């Protein structure tokens, strides 16, 4: 059976999976949750 073609978004995710960026709570938009 032919292999299913990998969607472009998942192929891109595979290529980019070595990123070392770490996001902070600020980036997460937690300001919206301020008490």
């Amino acid at each position, binding site marked *: 059976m032919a*292999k299913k073609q990998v*969607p472009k*978004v*998942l192929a891109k995710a595979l290529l980019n999976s070595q990123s070392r960026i*770490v996001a902070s709570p600020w980036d997460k938009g*937690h300001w919206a949750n301020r008490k």
Partner: protein
Amino acid sequence: MILPGQDSHGNPYPHSISQQAYLKFLLSIFNQWVGIDDEDIEIRDLKSIIDLMLGGEFRECVYMGRCDIFATVYSDGSIYSCDALPKTREFYFGRVNQPVKDIRKSANLLKLIRMINIHKKFCGACEYFKICKSGCLQDYLPDLLKGGNSSCGDLKRYYTTVRSKLLEYDLL
């Protein structure tokens, strides 16, 4: 941005949605994202999970298991934990004019670290621990305060669905 949100008793805020509803939303978005298949569309919450499953290191704070390293400095100089947590006395660590070493020794901070570590130990056997590192304290705090441990069945279903999709394309 849509975020789940709940108070320290586990009740969703009036303007917010439950974790279960949020994860259902994420799964729906995930399926649509793969279906539309437009490389210009990037969804951070999904990106984090997929990157980690594929062996990457993109890690949002909620997947770091280090809620203790994020603090909030308020306009009056007070320092509390991450502002995703309630601004209550138990999360007060000190003031900006105190020496950092005193803040690091704050009984509340040390208690928070102990709480996180206990929870991590509980989560250690889970197959998804390497992904979520026990998750965001905001999500499991209500369970901890009730004396239990996090019930993250919905989160596991979310991870399982994403993993299944990656397996479907032989990416894992």
